[in-house]
């Protein structure tokens, strides 16, 4: 188990990581989710021992490893850039950590071939990395991390430079491969979608702070505060200011809707509601009572084939809806978007979640 206890890191007066406490268990897949410069890489460097924290301690399996350099620890790391030894063949690249560990030849050969097979590199073992495609190069780097039998494997946006489709395939494979080795996996990404696909546990990062850490789906569905909800939403979360009076919420531009069961007990006052784009529907004529309605003017619509993104303006606010089917709408059209209040996230003035979405989750 890897424990970070109130770890902080500042460089030249600039704080990169502030007060991070995390417990990562063996065999777990942990996602660090946050935008660029939110501290993902800094945090990974601390975990690996590439940097020493300025405050706090790092404990690995009960042993304090704060400040123990990376060479003396069993850590593997894969970066966004494809980093391989350019002069070595793919085989030798994968074998390199084992050669350093001075393992017997037969064992090296067996492990390399197994990892190569998993990463679909068997046909390329004799080539050098520069003669491979980007995907193959990154798979070589991943295979090298895999054979190392490290207790901590750090993957820093490993798929970011790969083609969309390739990413899809590798993303499906990676959790499986890594689950088998029993190491602690940490995977940094900027994309909420990727975190969801990987599953496991997710820590959301914002400005060097961990805002929430838990089961990925749980962090997504029940964010503790508005920062987490925002970090974990792609397309961006729609946020609207509202006033609660009695059993109703009142917003700008004539927005008015009844609080759902879970929201009714909230005290009156100012709140912010967060609506995920896919919870906004469009043109639902079935005038079911429960739904709330938003009037908006279409700014732009984008079709992805099976779905449409509708960007619409409400006064100063731009909201995004992700609706099923192809909707051809013209900019300037007035439309009504509907949502179920039960699907809203409600945040207090302090940004903390006041009421999470109450929709029961399907089994």
């Amino acid at each position, binding site marked *: 188990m890897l424990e970070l206890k109130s770890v902080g890191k500042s460089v030249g007066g600039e704080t990169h990581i502030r007060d991070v406490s995390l417990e990562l268990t063996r065999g777990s897949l942990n996602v660090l989710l946050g935008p660029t410069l939110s501290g993902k890489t800094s945090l990974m460097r601390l975990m690996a021992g590439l940097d020493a924290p300025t405050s706090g301690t790092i404990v690995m399996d009960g042993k304090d490893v704060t400040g123990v350099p990376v060479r003396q620890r069993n850590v593997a790391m894969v970066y966004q850039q494809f980093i391989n030894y350019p002069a070595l063949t793919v085989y030798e690249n994968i074998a390199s950590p084992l050669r350093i560990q001075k393992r017997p030849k037969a064992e090296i050969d067996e492990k390399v071939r197994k990892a190569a097979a998993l990463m679909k590199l068997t046909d390329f073992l004799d080539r050098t990395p520069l003669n491979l495609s980007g995907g193959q190069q990154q798979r070589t780097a991943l295979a090298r991390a895999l054979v190392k039998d490290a207790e901590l494997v750090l993957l820093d946006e490993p798929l970011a430079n790969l*083609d*969309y489709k390739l990413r899809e395939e590798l993303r499906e494979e990676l959790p499986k491969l890594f689950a088998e080795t029993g190491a602690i996996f940490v995977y940094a990404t900027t994309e909420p979608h990727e975190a969801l696909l990987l599953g496991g546990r997710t820590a959301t990062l914002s400005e060097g702070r961990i805002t929430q850490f838990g089961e990925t789906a749980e962090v997504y569905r029940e964010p503790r505060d508005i920062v987490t909800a925002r970090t974990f939403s792609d397309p961006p979360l729609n946020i609207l200011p509202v006033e609660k009076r009695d059993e109703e919420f009142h917003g700008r531009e004539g927005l008015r809707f009844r609080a759902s069961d879970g929201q009714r007990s909230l005290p009156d006052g100012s709140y912010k509601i967060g609506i995920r784009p896919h919870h906004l529907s469009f043109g639902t004529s079935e005038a079911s009572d429960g739904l709330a309605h938003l009037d908006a003017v279409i700014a732009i619509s984008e079709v*992805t084939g099976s779905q449409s993104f509708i960007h619409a303006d409400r006064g100063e606010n731009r909201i995004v809806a992700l609706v099923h089917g*192809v909707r051809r709408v013209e*900019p300037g059209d007035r439309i009504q978007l509907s949502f179920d209040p039960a699907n809203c996230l409600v945040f207090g003035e302090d940004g903390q979640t006041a009421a999470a979405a109450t929709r029961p989750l*399907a089994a």
Partner: protein
Amino acid sequence: MARIRLDHIRHAYTPELARAGNFALNNIDTAFEDGGAYALLGPSGCGKTTLLNIISGLLTPSEGHVYFDRTDVTLLTPEARNIAQVFQFPVIYDTMTVAENLAFPLKNRKVEAREIERRVADMLKRIGLADKAGRKARGLTADEKQKISLGRGLVRSDVNAILFDEPLTVIDPHMKWQLRSELKQLHREFEMTMVYVTHDQTEALTFADKVVVMYDGEVVQIGTPEELFERPQHTFVGYFIGSPGMNVLPCRIEGGEAIVAGERVALPGHSGERRSEKTELGIRPEFVGVVERGQPGAMPVTIEKVEDIGSERIVRARLGGERVTAIVREGASVPGDAAVTFDPNALNLYENSRLVARSGGAA
């Protein structure tokens, strides 16, 4: 502004490659209408960037001609073609301010000083950088820099086309959304011919009116996002567009029915025998229903994995020996003893990877 016509373009990077018949582009013959938004979509190495560079004039094709309206521009320099291009990594002039960056292409073309000032001020407002006009461009964020590159193209109101080479690669997911919709808005305002190269289907489909899907140096389909989604002309398009891609299942045809992994799937409106080496049935995961076993027409499957991606869940199952992927909406249940149904209106039939028949309409 101009209509861009590509007349039987073939390109090989060296004469030796050409003699070996090894072309990066093979017989591209298509046209981009004036004022349209086009995307060139394909995996890396498919030739999309080569094609873009041929349009911009950075490359001269080995064979064929490029026309802007009726003018043959095949041998003209990029400057003479009067086009703008936005690159993968933001290209800015470090030592100039934001405003000077925008003025640069106009100054080079000896536009009158007052006119430059007017246009630059207007463009600064449109790309939302008015408050940073006097800042050195060097210190800006990646998305701001990319906006400057874009602004430098748009500021010349008379450009024939604006070309984008994976312009959002270095941009954070949250900013991607904003930039993409701004790009689309600018396209509507300026009505310029825009060609956008990307490997990311979401970017391509949301940006473009028409998407050109490329594979291995050839155009496999040109169509609107809906067409690509509903009627992929080639199994590659089915696989490449959509996330996850289309299920492509080997089958046999017998009397208006397809036999997939021993199960019979009715093909409405399709009669007669088909005989070819490779017959496949294509159906998008969006049209695969997951139901309890025992329902009429439902084919029993074993579920391997269910991925919760927030707005929906991806069910990965096995139908006989074939892998079938289904998408179910948030909240819908996935039974333990599951079976799948295929929406009869969303079946595509492929022979040797080419679409030959489609249920509910002509191929």
